[in-house]
Protein backbone atom coordinates (compact mmCIF):
# COMPACT_ATOMS: atom_id res chain seq x y z
CA UNK A 1 0.00 0.00 0.00
CA UNK A 2 0.89 3.67 -0.15
CA UNK A 3 2.23 4.77 3.20
CA UNK A 4 1.74 8.36 4.30
CA UNK A 5 2.21 10.39 7.43
CA UNK A 6 0.26 13.41 8.57
CA UNK A 7 2.03 16.74 8.13
CA UNK A 8 2.89 18.73 11.26
CA UNK A 9 -0.31 20.32 12.56
CA UNK A 10 1.06 23.85 12.40
CA UNK A 11 1.82 23.45 8.73
CA UNK A 12 -1.68 22.13 8.08
CA UNK A 13 -3.33 24.90 10.07
CA UNK A 14 -1.33 27.62 8.32
CA UNK A 15 -2.23 26.24 4.93
CA UNK A 16 -6.00 26.43 5.56
CA UNK A 17 -6.53 29.19 8.11
CA UNK A 18 -7.21 31.87 5.51
CA UNK A 19 -10.23 30.06 4.09
CA UNK A 20 -13.61 30.37 5.76
CA UNK A 21 -15.13 27.03 4.88
CA UNK A 22 -12.89 24.07 4.64
CA UNK A 23 -13.63 20.46 4.07
CA UNK A 24 -11.37 17.80 5.54
CA UNK A 25 -11.57 14.89 3.15
CA UNK A 26 -10.30 11.50 4.21
CA UNK A 27 -9.63 8.45 2.10
CA UNK A 28 -10.75 4.97 3.02
CA UNK A 29 -8.00 3.03 1.34
CA UNK A 30 -4.21 3.10 1.92
CA UNK A 31 -4.09 6.09 4.27
CA UNK A 32 -6.78 4.52 6.41
CA UNK A 33 -4.75 1.37 6.78
CA UNK A 34 -1.59 3.27 7.67
CA UNK A 35 -3.60 5.51 10.00
CA UNK A 36 -2.69 8.81 8.40
CA UNK A 37 -5.87 9.96 6.70
CA UNK A 38 -8.85 7.72 7.34
CA UNK A 39 -12.14 8.53 9.03
CA UNK A 40 -10.60 8.46 12.49
CA UNK A 41 -7.77 10.82 11.60
CA UNK A 42 -10.17 13.13 9.81
CA UNK A 43 -12.27 13.35 12.97
CA UNK A 44 -9.32 14.12 15.21
CA UNK A 45 -7.86 16.66 12.82
CA UNK A 46 -11.20 18.42 12.44
CA UNK A 47 -11.46 18.89 16.19
CA UNK A 48 -7.87 20.14 16.34
CA UNK A 49 -8.53 22.65 13.58
CA UNK A 50 -11.67 23.98 15.27
CA UNK A 51 -9.79 24.37 18.53
CA UNK A 52 -6.81 26.05 16.91
CA UNK A 53 -9.12 28.41 15.05
CA UNK A 54 -10.75 29.45 18.31
CA UNK A 55 -7.40 29.95 20.04
CA UNK A 56 -6.14 32.05 17.17
CA UNK A 57 -9.35 34.03 16.68
CA UNK A 58 -9.75 32.75 13.18
CA UNK A 59 -13.14 32.28 11.58
CA UNK A 60 -13.04 28.73 10.27
CA UNK A 61 -15.91 26.37 9.49
CA UNK A 62 -14.72 22.81 9.21
CA UNK A 63 -16.69 20.03 7.55
CA UNK A 64 -15.51 16.45 7.54
CA UNK A 65 -16.05 13.55 5.20
CA UNK A 66 -14.24 10.34 4.29
CA UNK A 67 -14.82 8.55 1.01
CA UNK A 68 -13.78 5.06 -0.04
CA UNK A 69 -11.09 6.20 -2.45
CA UNK A 70 -9.92 9.61 -3.57
CA UNK A 71 -8.28 8.30 -6.73
CA UNK A 72 -11.39 6.93 -8.36
CA UNK A 73 -14.23 8.91 -9.97
CA UNK A 74 -16.97 6.56 -8.87
CA UNK A 75 -16.51 7.43 -5.20
CA UNK A 76 -17.20 11.11 -5.72
CA UNK A 77 -20.99 10.75 -5.55
CA UNK A 78 -23.50 13.57 -5.61
CA UNK A 79 -23.41 14.18 -1.90
CA UNK A 80 -19.60 14.34 -1.85
CA UNK A 81 -19.51 16.58 -4.90
CA UNK A 82 -21.99 19.02 -3.38
CA UNK A 83 -20.12 19.16 -0.11
CA UNK A 84 -16.84 19.80 -1.84
CA UNK A 85 -18.37 22.54 -3.92
CA UNK A 86 -19.68 24.30 -0.82
CA UNK A 87 -16.18 24.60 0.60
CA UNK A 88 -13.60 27.30 -0.12
CA UNK A 89 -10.82 24.78 0.16
CA UNK A 90 -10.42 21.03 0.58
CA UNK A 91 -7.85 19.63 2.97
CA UNK A 92 -7.18 16.19 1.57
CA UNK A 93 -5.79 13.49 3.81
CA UNK A 94 -5.44 11.23 0.80
CA UNK A 95 -2.01 10.60 -0.67
CA UNK A 96 -0.51 12.86 -3.32
CA UNK A 97 -2.61 11.07 -5.91
CA UNK A 98 -5.82 11.93 -4.10
CA UNK A 99 -4.95 15.61 -3.85
CA UNK A 100 -4.28 15.82 -7.57
CA UNK A 101 -7.33 13.79 -8.48
CA UNK A 102 -9.60 16.22 -6.63
CA UNK A 103 -7.94 19.12 -8.46
CA UNK A 104 -8.66 17.36 -11.75
CA UNK A 105 -12.30 16.77 -10.84
CA UNK A 106 -12.85 20.24 -9.39
CA UNK A 107 -10.66 22.61 -11.39
CA UNK A 108 -11.80 25.69 -9.45
CA UNK A 109 -11.24 24.22 -6.03
CA UNK A 110 -8.22 24.90 -3.80
CA UNK A 111 -6.92 21.57 -2.45
CA UNK A 112 -4.29 21.36 0.28
CA UNK A 113 -2.33 18.24 1.16
CA UNK A 114 -2.61 17.11 4.78
CA UNK A 115 -0.18 14.22 4.59
CA UNK A 116 3.33 13.60 3.32
CA UNK A 117 3.17 10.65 0.95
CA UNK A 118 6.12 8.43 1.80
CA UNK A 119 6.44 5.16 -0.02
CA UNK A 120 5.03 1.83 -1.12
CA UNK A 121 5.43 -0.37 1.87
CA UNK A 122 4.06 -2.74 4.42
CA UNK A 123 3.10 -2.74 8.05
CA UNK A 124 5.98 -4.42 9.88
CA UNK A 125 4.73 -4.23 13.44
CA UNK A 126 2.30 -2.12 15.45
CA UNK A 127 2.98 1.48 14.41
CA UNK A 128 5.81 0.66 12.04
CA UNK A 129 5.77 0.73 8.25
CA UNK A 130 8.68 0.08 5.95
CA UNK A 131 9.40 0.64 2.27
CA UNK A 132 9.37 -2.39 -0.01
CA UNK A 133 8.90 -1.25 -3.61
CA UNK A 134 10.20 1.68 -5.64
CA UNK A 135 7.76 1.26 -8.50
CA UNK A 136 10.63 0.76 -10.92
CA UNK A 137 8.34 -0.40 -13.72
CA UNK A 138 10.13 -3.66 -14.41
CA UNK A 139 10.08 -5.91 -11.41
CA UNK A 140 13.25 -7.92 -10.83
CA UNK A 141 12.10 -9.65 -7.66
CA UNK A 142 12.37 -13.05 -9.32
CA UNK A 143 16.09 -12.49 -9.90
CA UNK A 144 16.56 -11.61 -6.24
CA UNK A 145 14.27 -14.22 -4.75
CA UNK A 146 11.77 -11.73 -3.45
CA UNK A 147 13.97 -9.02 -1.95
CA UNK A 148 14.08 -5.72 -3.80
CA UNK A 149 17.50 -4.11 -4.24
CA UNK A 150 15.97 -1.04 -5.90
CA UNK A 151 13.85 0.08 -2.98
CA UNK A 152 15.64 -1.56 -0.08
CA UNK A 153 19.32 -0.82 -0.72
CA UNK A 154 20.21 2.79 0.10
CA UNK A 155 22.23 2.85 -3.12
CA UNK A 156 19.95 0.59 -5.20
CA UNK A 157 22.95 -1.67 -5.82
CA UNK A 158 22.04 -4.47 -8.19
CA UNK A 159 25.33 -6.23 -7.40
CA UNK A 160 25.50 -5.56 -3.67
CA UNK A 161 26.19 -5.49 -0.83
CA UNK A 162 28.68 -2.63 -0.60
CA UNK A 163 31.50 -2.38 1.92
CA UNK A 164 29.31 -0.54 4.40
CA UNK A 165 27.25 -3.55 5.36
CA UNK A 166 27.77 -4.42 9.01
CA UNK A 167 25.92 -6.82 11.33
CA UNK A 168 23.21 -7.11 8.73
CA UNK A 169 22.55 -3.39 8.82
CA UNK A 170 23.13 -0.61 6.31
CA UNK A 171 25.78 2.02 6.98
CA UNK A 172 23.28 4.76 6.23
CA UNK A 173 21.34 4.00 9.43
CA UNK A 174 22.78 0.98 11.26
CA UNK A 175 20.08 1.21 13.91
CA UNK A 176 17.08 1.03 11.64
CA UNK A 177 17.82 -0.02 8.08
CA UNK A 178 18.56 -3.61 7.20
CA UNK A 179 21.17 -4.09 4.47
CA UNK A 180 19.36 -5.33 1.37
CA UNK A 181 22.53 -6.98 0.11
CA UNK A 182 22.76 -9.01 3.30
CA UNK A 183 19.07 -9.94 3.10
CA UNK A 184 19.54 -11.14 -0.47
CA UNK A 185 22.65 -13.07 0.53
CA UNK A 186 20.84 -14.74 3.45
CA UNK A 187 17.92 -15.66 1.23
CA UNK A 188 20.14 -17.21 -1.43
CA UNK A 189 22.04 -19.09 1.21
CA UNK A 190 18.82 -20.43 2.69
CA UNK A 191 17.68 -21.53 -0.77
CA UNK A 192 21.04 -23.20 -1.38
CA UNK A 193 21.83 -21.14 -4.43
CA UNK A 194 24.60 -18.84 -3.24
CA UNK A 195 26.74 -19.51 -6.29
CA UNK A 196 24.17 -17.80 -8.51
CA UNK A 197 24.97 -14.55 -6.73
CA UNK A 198 28.20 -14.59 -8.72
CA UNK A 199 26.23 -13.72 -11.82
CA UNK A 200 26.84 -10.21 -13.05
CA UNK A 201 23.71 -8.08 -13.11
CA UNK A 202 23.92 -5.55 -15.93
CA UNK A 203 22.87 -1.93 -15.66
CA UNK A 204 19.13 -1.67 -15.08
CA UNK A 205 16.74 -0.16 -17.60
CA UNK A 206 15.50 2.89 -15.72
CA UNK A 207 13.45 4.18 -18.64
CA UNK A 208 10.55 2.11 -17.34
CA UNK A 209 10.88 3.82 -14.00
CA UNK A 210 10.06 7.48 -13.26
CA UNK A 211 13.19 8.36 -15.26
CA UNK A 212 11.24 7.73 -18.45
CA UNK A 213 8.81 10.51 -17.53
CA UNK A 214 5.36 10.17 -15.94
CA UNK A 215 4.03 6.73 -16.74
CA UNK A 216 0.66 5.36 -17.72
CA UNK A 217 -0.79 1.94 -18.09
CA UNK A 218 -3.18 1.51 -21.00
CA UNK A 219 -5.21 -1.67 -21.37
CA UNK A 220 -7.23 -1.52 -24.51
CA UNK A 221 -9.37 -4.53 -23.72
CA UNK A 222 -10.75 -2.62 -20.76
CA UNK A 223 -11.44 0.63 -22.55
CA UNK A 224 -14.85 1.71 -23.73
CA UNK A 225 -15.09 2.62 -27.36
CA UNK A 226 -16.10 6.18 -26.68
CA UNK A 227 -13.13 6.87 -24.44
Amino acid at each position, binding site marked *: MIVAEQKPFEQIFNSVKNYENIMVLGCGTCVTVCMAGGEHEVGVLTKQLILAAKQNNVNLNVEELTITRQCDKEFFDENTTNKIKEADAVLSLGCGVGVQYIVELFPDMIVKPGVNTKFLGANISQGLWSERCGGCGECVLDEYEGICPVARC*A*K*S*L*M*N*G*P*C*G*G*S*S*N*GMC*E*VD*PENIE*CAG*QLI*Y*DRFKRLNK*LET*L*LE*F*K*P*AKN*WSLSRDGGPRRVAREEMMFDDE
Partner: protein
Amino acid sequence: MDKNKTSSDSHLEQVLYSGEFTLTGELGPPKSADKNDIIEKAKSLKGYVDASNITDNQTAIARMSSIASGVISLEQGLEPVIQITTRDRNRLAIQSDVLGAAALGIKNILCLSGDHQSFGNHPTAKNVFDIDSIQLINMLYKMREEQQFECGDMIRNGKKGPVVEPKIFIGAAANPFAEPLDFRVMRLEKKIRAGADFIQTQVIYDMDRFKQWMEEVKQKDLHKKVYILAGITPLKSARMAKYMKDNVSGISFTGDIIERMEKAEDQKAEGIQIALEQIEEIKSMEGVHGVHLMAIGGEKSVPDIVEKAGLMPRPSVKEMKT
Protein backbone atom coordinates in the same frame (compact mmCIF):
# COMPACT_ATOMS: atom_id res chain seq x y z
CA MET B 1 42.20 -10.19 -16.83
CA ASP B 2 45.17 -11.71 -18.58
CA LYS B 3 48.26 -11.17 -16.46
CA ASN B 4 50.54 -12.25 -19.27
CA LYS B 5 50.15 -8.96 -21.04
CA THR B 6 49.42 -5.37 -20.25
CA SER B 7 46.28 -3.68 -21.40
CA SER B 8 47.07 0.00 -20.98
CA ASP B 9 49.97 2.48 -20.91
CA SER B 10 49.57 2.88 -17.21
CA HIS B 11 52.79 3.15 -15.25
CA LEU B 12 51.03 1.48 -12.35
CA GLU B 13 50.22 -1.47 -14.54
CA GLN B 14 53.82 -1.66 -15.77
CA VAL B 15 55.15 -1.77 -12.22
CA LEU B 16 52.66 -4.45 -11.17
CA TYR B 17 53.36 -6.41 -14.33
CA SER B 18 57.11 -6.33 -13.61
CA GLY B 19 56.45 -8.16 -10.38
CA GLU B 20 57.91 -5.38 -8.27
CA PHE B 21 56.27 -4.77 -4.87
CA THR B 22 54.03 -1.87 -5.78
CA LEU B 23 52.99 1.22 -3.87
CA THR B 24 50.01 3.47 -4.41
CA GLY B 25 49.19 6.53 -2.35
CA GLU B 26 46.18 8.71 -1.88
CA LEU B 27 45.69 12.38 -2.55
CA GLY B 28 42.59 14.22 -1.38
CA PRO B 29 41.58 17.20 -3.55
CA PRO B 30 40.93 20.49 -1.71
CA LYS B 31 37.55 21.94 -0.78
CA SER B 32 38.44 24.94 -2.90
CA ALA B 33 39.82 25.86 -6.31
CA ASP B 34 43.34 26.00 -4.85
CA LYS B 35 45.57 24.40 -7.45
CA ASN B 36 48.61 24.75 -5.21
CA ASP B 37 47.14 22.36 -2.70
CA ILE B 38 47.34 19.57 -5.29
CA ILE B 39 50.76 20.67 -6.50
CA GLU B 40 52.15 20.53 -2.95
CA LYS B 41 50.60 17.15 -2.18
CA ALA B 42 51.73 15.72 -5.51
CA LYS B 43 55.26 16.97 -4.91
CA SER B 44 55.48 15.20 -1.57
CA LEU B 45 54.19 11.91 -3.00
CA LYS B 46 56.10 11.99 -6.30
CA GLY B 47 58.84 9.41 -6.48
CA TYR B 48 57.65 7.69 -3.30
CA VAL B 49 54.60 5.95 -4.72
CA ASP B 50 54.06 4.48 -8.19
CA ALA B 51 50.69 6.14 -8.57
CA SER B 52 48.30 7.99 -6.36
CA ASN B 53 44.55 7.73 -5.99
CA ILE B 54 42.64 10.97 -6.35
CA THR B 55 39.42 10.74 -4.40
CA ASP B 56 36.04 11.68 -5.89
CA ASN B 57 34.04 13.87 -3.50
CA GLN B 58 35.22 11.63 -0.70
CA THR B 59 32.74 11.04 2.15
CA ALA B 60 30.22 12.88 -0.04
CA ILE B 61 31.84 16.26 0.55
CA ALA B 62 32.06 18.54 -2.49
CA ARG B 63 35.69 18.99 -3.54
CA MET B 64 37.72 19.76 -6.62
CA SER B 65 36.94 17.17 -9.27
CA SER B 66 39.10 14.07 -9.28
CA ILE B 67 39.84 14.37 -13.00
CA ALA B 68 40.90 18.01 -12.78
CA SER B 69 43.03 17.22 -9.72
CA GLY B 70 44.44 14.21 -11.52
CA VAL B 71 45.56 16.30 -14.46
CA ILE B 72 47.32 18.73 -12.10
CA SER B 73 48.97 15.76 -10.43
CA LEU B 74 50.03 14.44 -13.83
CA GLU B 75 51.65 17.78 -14.63
CA GLN B 76 53.72 17.29 -11.50
CA GLY B 77 54.86 13.88 -12.67
CA LEU B 78 52.73 11.85 -10.27
CA GLU B 79 50.57 9.28 -12.01
CA PRO B 80 46.98 9.55 -10.82
CA VAL B 81 44.42 6.83 -10.21
CA ILE B 82 41.15 8.66 -10.68
CA GLN B 83 38.38 7.50 -8.42
CA ILE B 84 34.90 7.53 -9.89
CA THR B 85 31.82 6.96 -7.78
CA THR B 86 28.43 6.11 -9.19
CA ARG B 87 26.74 8.26 -6.56
CA ASP B 88 26.98 11.59 -8.39
CA ARG B 89 26.90 10.71 -12.06
CA ASN B 90 24.90 8.49 -14.38
CA ARG B 91 26.22 6.32 -17.19
CA LEU B 92 26.16 9.22 -19.66
CA ALA B 93 28.17 11.56 -17.45
CA ILE B 94 30.64 8.87 -16.43
CA GLN B 95 31.40 7.73 -19.96
CA SER B 96 31.86 11.29 -21.12
CA ASP B 97 34.20 11.92 -18.18
CA VAL B 98 36.15 8.75 -18.94
CA LEU B 99 36.68 9.86 -22.55
CA GLY B 100 37.77 13.29 -21.37
CA ALA B 101 40.04 11.85 -18.70
CA ALA B 102 41.69 9.51 -21.20
CA ALA B 103 42.20 12.39 -23.64
CA LEU B 104 43.92 14.33 -20.85
CA GLY B 105 46.31 11.48 -20.12
CA ILE B 106 44.59 9.65 -17.28
CA LYS B 107 45.34 5.93 -17.37
CA ASN B 108 43.93 4.45 -14.18
CA ILE B 109 40.41 4.56 -12.79
CA LEU B 110 39.17 3.08 -9.53
CA CYS B 111 35.49 2.18 -9.59
CA LEU B 112 33.42 2.80 -6.47
CA SER B 113 29.79 3.15 -5.53
CA GLY B 114 30.76 5.97 -3.16
CA ASP B 115 29.80 6.95 0.36
CA HIS B 116 26.12 7.71 0.68
CA GLN B 117 25.39 11.44 0.48
CA SER B 118 23.90 11.40 3.97
CA PHE B 119 27.47 11.27 5.34
CA GLY B 120 28.63 14.43 3.61
CA ASN B 121 28.00 18.15 3.57
CA HIS B 122 25.05 18.01 1.17
CA PRO B 123 22.82 15.45 2.88
CA THR B 124 19.71 16.84 1.13
CA ALA B 125 21.13 15.99 -2.31
CA LYS B 126 19.53 13.48 -4.66
CA ASN B 127 21.81 10.56 -5.40
CA VAL B 128 22.21 8.95 -8.79
CA PHE B 129 23.21 5.27 -8.53
CA ASP B 130 22.15 4.68 -12.11
CA ILE B 131 24.77 1.93 -12.07
CA ASP B 132 26.75 0.30 -9.28
CA SER B 133 30.50 -0.15 -8.90
CA ILE B 134 30.55 -3.58 -10.56
CA GLN B 135 28.55 -2.29 -13.52
CA LEU B 136 31.04 0.60 -13.74
CA ILE B 137 33.96 -1.85 -13.85
CA ASN B 138 32.23 -3.70 -16.65
CA MET B 139 31.46 -0.48 -18.51
CA LEU B 140 35.14 0.53 -18.52
CA TYR B 141 36.11 -2.98 -19.55
CA LYS B 142 33.66 -2.93 -22.43
CA MET B 143 34.93 0.49 -23.50
CA ARG B 144 38.52 -0.74 -23.52
CA GLU B 145 38.16 -4.27 -24.84
CA GLU B 146 35.16 -3.99 -27.14
CA GLN B 147 35.48 -0.31 -28.04
CA GLN B 148 31.83 0.10 -27.15
CA PHE B 149 29.75 2.35 -25.03
CA GLU B 150 27.40 0.85 -22.49
CA CYS B 151 24.59 1.12 -25.06
CA GLY B 152 26.58 -0.87 -27.63
CA ASP B 153 27.53 2.03 -29.92
CA MET B 154 31.12 2.03 -31.13
CA ILE B 155 33.43 4.58 -29.56
CA ARG B 156 33.99 6.63 -32.67
CA ASN B 157 32.98 10.02 -33.89
CA GLY B 158 30.59 9.10 -36.70
CA LYS B 159 30.76 6.15 -39.07
CA LYS B 160 34.07 7.17 -40.61
CA GLY B 161 35.76 8.55 -37.53
CA PRO B 162 38.61 6.60 -35.99
CA VAL B 163 37.81 4.26 -33.10
CA VAL B 164 39.63 5.82 -30.15
CA GLU B 165 38.75 3.95 -27.02
CA PRO B 166 39.95 4.87 -23.52
CA LYS B 167 42.68 2.43 -22.52
CA ILE B 168 42.07 2.43 -18.83
CA PHE B 169 43.72 0.21 -16.21
CA ILE B 170 40.69 -0.73 -14.16
CA GLY B 171 40.71 -0.71 -10.39
CA ALA B 172 38.20 -1.79 -7.80
CA ALA B 173 37.93 -1.83 -4.05
CA ALA B 174 37.56 -4.87 -1.85
CA ASN B 175 36.63 -4.96 1.78
CA PRO B 176 37.72 -8.19 3.49
CA PHE B 177 36.20 -6.92 6.74
CA ALA B 178 32.66 -6.07 5.71
CA GLU B 179 29.75 -8.44 5.99
CA PRO B 180 28.60 -10.97 5.05
CA LEU B 181 32.13 -12.23 5.61
CA ASP B 182 31.86 -15.35 3.50
CA PHE B 183 30.52 -13.32 0.60
CA ARG B 184 33.54 -11.04 0.44
CA VAL B 185 35.67 -13.35 -1.70
CA MET B 186 32.71 -14.02 -3.97
CA ARG B 187 32.31 -10.30 -4.39
CA LEU B 188 35.97 -10.01 -5.33
CA GLU B 189 35.47 -12.74 -7.88
CA LYS B 190 32.48 -10.89 -9.24
CA LYS B 191 34.57 -7.76 -9.69
CA ILE B 192 37.31 -9.74 -11.44
CA ARG B 193 34.77 -11.31 -13.77
CA ALA B 194 33.35 -7.87 -14.53
CA GLY B 195 36.81 -6.77 -15.66
CA ALA B 196 38.82 -5.44 -12.70
CA ASP B 197 42.60 -5.44 -13.24
CA PHE B 198 43.68 -4.38 -9.77
CA ILE B 199 42.21 -4.26 -6.31
CA GLN B 200 42.86 -1.95 -3.40
CA THR B 201 41.60 -3.24 -0.09
CA GLN B 202 39.98 -1.46 2.82
CA VAL B 203 42.52 -0.44 5.47
CA ILE B 204 43.79 -3.35 7.49
CA TYR B 205 43.74 -3.24 11.27
CA ASP B 206 42.82 -6.86 11.56
CA MET B 207 45.67 -8.79 10.00
CA ASP B 208 44.19 -12.17 10.96
CA ARG B 209 41.02 -11.52 9.05
CA PHE B 210 43.02 -10.19 6.11
CA LYS B 211 45.14 -13.35 6.04
CA GLN B 212 42.07 -15.52 6.20
CA TRP B 213 40.58 -13.60 3.29
CA MET B 214 43.81 -14.00 1.31
CA GLU B 215 43.74 -17.72 1.97
CA GLU B 216 40.27 -17.93 0.45
CA VAL B 217 41.44 -15.73 -2.44
CA LYS B 218 44.33 -18.10 -3.13
CA GLN B 219 42.17 -21.19 -2.86
CA LYS B 220 40.19 -19.81 -5.74
CA ASP B 221 43.32 -18.71 -7.61
CA LEU B 222 41.94 -15.20 -7.74
CA HIS B 223 45.35 -13.68 -6.91
CA LYS B 224 46.49 -14.93 -10.31
CA LYS B 225 43.71 -13.06 -12.05
CA VAL B 226 44.05 -9.67 -10.43
CA TYR B 227 46.68 -7.53 -8.72
CA ILE B 228 45.98 -6.99 -5.04
CA LEU B 229 47.20 -3.97 -3.09
CA ALA B 230 46.69 -4.12 0.65
CA GLY B 231 45.29 -0.99 2.29
CA ILE B 232 47.43 0.57 5.01
CA THR B 233 46.73 3.75 6.98
CA PRO B 234 48.99 4.70 9.86
CA LEU B 235 46.89 5.50 12.92
CA LYS B 236 47.44 8.98 14.30
CA SER B 237 46.11 8.37 17.79
CA ALA B 238 44.28 5.88 19.97
CA ARG B 239 41.31 8.21 19.78
CA MET B 240 41.22 7.95 15.99
CA ALA B 241 41.37 4.17 16.27
CA LYS B 242 38.49 4.04 18.71
CA TYR B 243 36.44 6.45 16.67
CA MET B 244 36.90 4.32 13.55
CA LYS B 245 36.11 1.15 15.41
CA ASP B 246 32.84 2.55 16.73
CA ASN B 247 31.67 4.69 13.85
CA VAL B 248 32.94 3.39 10.54
CA SER B 249 31.10 0.40 9.07
CA GLY B 250 33.30 -2.22 7.49
CA ILE B 251 36.51 -1.65 9.47
CA SER B 252 37.69 -4.27 11.90
CA PHE B 253 40.35 -4.07 14.63
CA THR B 254 42.29 -6.71 16.45
CA GLY B 255 42.37 -5.92 20.13
CA ASP B 256 46.07 -5.34 20.54
CA ILE B 257 46.29 -2.48 18.03
CA ILE B 258 44.18 -0.11 20.10
CA GLU B 259 45.94 -1.24 23.25
CA ARG B 260 49.35 -0.56 21.71
CA MET B 261 48.25 2.89 20.63
CA GLU B 262 46.89 3.69 24.09
CA LYS B 263 50.07 2.61 25.83
CA ALA B 264 52.44 4.42 23.51
CA GLU B 265 54.11 7.62 24.68
CA ASP B 266 54.29 8.97 21.16
CA GLN B 267 51.07 7.70 19.57
CA LYS B 268 51.84 9.09 16.14
CA ALA B 269 55.18 7.30 16.03
CA GLU B 270 53.52 4.12 17.26
CA GLY B 271 50.95 4.39 14.47
CA ILE B 272 53.75 4.57 11.92
CA GLN B 273 55.57 1.70 13.62
CA ILE B 274 52.45 -0.49 13.37
CA ALA B 275 52.08 0.43 9.70
CA LEU B 276 55.72 -0.49 9.05
CA GLU B 277 55.27 -3.87 10.71
CA GLN B 278 52.16 -4.48 8.64
CA ILE B 279 53.98 -3.58 5.42
CA GLU B 280 56.80 -5.95 6.37
CA GLU B 281 54.30 -8.75 6.93
CA ILE B 282 52.48 -8.04 3.70
CA LYS B 283 55.70 -8.00 1.66
CA SER B 284 56.17 -11.68 2.32
CA MET B 285 52.57 -12.66 1.67
CA GLU B 286 51.94 -14.68 -1.44
CA GLY B 287 49.36 -13.16 -3.74
CA VAL B 288 49.62 -9.61 -2.44
CA HIS B 289 51.30 -7.41 -5.01
CA GLY B 290 51.81 -4.25 -3.06
CA VAL B 291 50.44 -1.73 -0.63
CA HIS B 292 47.93 1.07 -0.97
CA LEU B 293 49.17 3.63 1.53
CA MET B 294 46.51 6.07 2.61
CA ALA B 295 47.78 8.73 4.95
CA ILE B 296 44.60 10.66 5.59
CA GLY B 297 45.50 14.34 5.45
CA GLY B 298 49.11 13.31 5.89
CA GLU B 299 50.44 13.13 2.36
CA LYS B 300 53.69 14.55 3.80
CA SER B 301 54.34 11.57 6.06
CA VAL B 302 54.39 9.12 3.15
CA PRO B 303 58.06 9.61 2.12
CA ASP B 304 59.19 8.85 5.67
CA ILE B 305 57.15 5.65 5.83
CA VAL B 306 58.21 4.47 2.38
CA GLU B 307 61.87 5.03 3.21
CA LYS B 308 61.64 3.31 6.58
CA ALA B 309 59.83 0.39 4.93
CA GLY B 310 62.85 -0.06 2.68
CA LEU B 311 60.80 0.46 -0.45
CA MET B 312 63.02 3.11 -2.01
CA PRO B 313 63.91 3.78 -4.75
CA ARG B 314 60.72 3.28 -6.71
CA PRO B 315 61.08 1.76 -10.17
CA SER B 316 61.11 4.31 -12.97
CA VAL B 317 59.09 4.10 -16.17
CA LYS B 318 62.20 3.71 -18.27
CA GLU B 319 63.45 0.68 -16.41
CA MET B 320 60.03 -0.80 -16.82
CA LYS B 321 60.01 -0.46 -20.55
CA THR B 322 63.34 -2.15 -21.12
